[in-house]
């Protein structure tokens, strides 16, 4: 995926920053809005180069829709993960069977990989140890299948269908 134009990237950054500003202040006071916009413009100017490669393309409605849909899915997975934790922590025998397994991902974008890694970390029994290209090394508290394919199926694939659309 090639880089978007500078203007597109800058505008995208400013928009995101201004949205964050709105959340931070949650105020429609024109003074806040003016200063917020000014600061977004300034900070954006310094940071857009590292912030985004896609620029405004990220605001594609399909992506946003998938992203919104991803939230409940992910939250559910996370709550499950925590119940799993509760079980393991509170169980007197500490039923664990840990190890480091390798998975593969189909995701290509950096942000996509980051989201996948974070999702893995926050969901049942897994933490991303390292990412090298398309290889994910994952510490798994209860190793069920130590082959690459088996692990991928268990760990990465459930998230990828969303993330593939959101981040490419």
């Amino acid at each position, binding site marked *: 995926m090639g880089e978007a134009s500078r203007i597109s990237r800058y505008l995208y950054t400013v928009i995101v920053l201004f949205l964050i500003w709105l959340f931070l202040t949650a105020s429609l006071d024109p*003074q806040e809005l003016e200063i917020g916009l000014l600061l977004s413009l300034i900070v954006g100017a310094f940071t857009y180069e590292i912030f985004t490669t896609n620029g405004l393309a990220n605001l594609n409605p399909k992506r946003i829709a998938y992203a919104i849909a991803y939230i409940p899915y992910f939250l559910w997975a996370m709550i499950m993960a925590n119940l799993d934790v509760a079980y393991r922590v509170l169980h007197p025998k500490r039923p664990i069977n840990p190890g480091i397994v390798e998975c593969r991902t189909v995701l290509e974008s950096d942000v996509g990989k980051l989201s996948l890694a974070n999702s893995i970390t926050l969901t049942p029994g897994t933490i991303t140890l390292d990412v090298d290209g398309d290889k994910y090394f994952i510490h798994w508290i209860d190793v069920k299948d130590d082959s690459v394919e088996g692990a991928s199926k268990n760990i990465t694939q459930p998230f990828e269908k969303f993330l593939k659309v959101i981040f490419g």
Partner: protein
Amino acid sequence: MLKRALAIILLLIVGYWLAQGLAGVPFGQDRMLVAQYYLDNVKQQTGAVNAVTAVVVNYRGFDTLGEVTVLFIASTGVGALLWRKKKKRTAKTEGSIVLTTGTRLLVPFVMLFGAYIFIHGHLTPGGGFPGGATIATAFLLLYLAFITYEIPHKGFEKTEGLAGMSYVLVGLIGLSIGGYFLFDWIWQTWNFGTENVGRLLSGGFIPIIYTIIGLKVGTELSGIIDNMLKEEVSE
């Protein structure tokens, strides 16, 4: 072992003594004298809602000028002590894609938030120093994630200097307009923002000074980090 025992005995006695002294300053009692004056007058005298900020920048602005100076000294001192003709980062491993990408996403936000902190100094807790520290954290993250990252040194040093000069200049303008060094001429002479107390564009020169401080602290702390993370390259 004996040394440790002696140290403990000694410290217990000293601690008891300090406690004795503190017993004369009962916890939670209202002993405000000057402070009550601040609380009673802060809004109309300085335009700030945050009394701490008013104290820091306005009533005791002289301290803050000193504080800025202290940090400047530290930055200069670290730069001087770790000065090398050629230097380079020595980190061995690059951060993983998780860290680098996370940093990319976070840096603009952290910087914006830093600016938010110092621009709202007169309304909320915070101000130039936490704001500056937040901004410096953004640079720290860049350093941590990318082993090849370097701050634009020269620009930062000049920013530091300019920010410091601006602070003193604001004070000197006060001296020439109001007759006193560090006089808040925006609030007290121009009466700018007096109808606005509690909103962003108020607080006299506090937002200006906090912006200056925020920039200065941000660049200084980043400079310190930069100096500490680099080692001499022998050639």
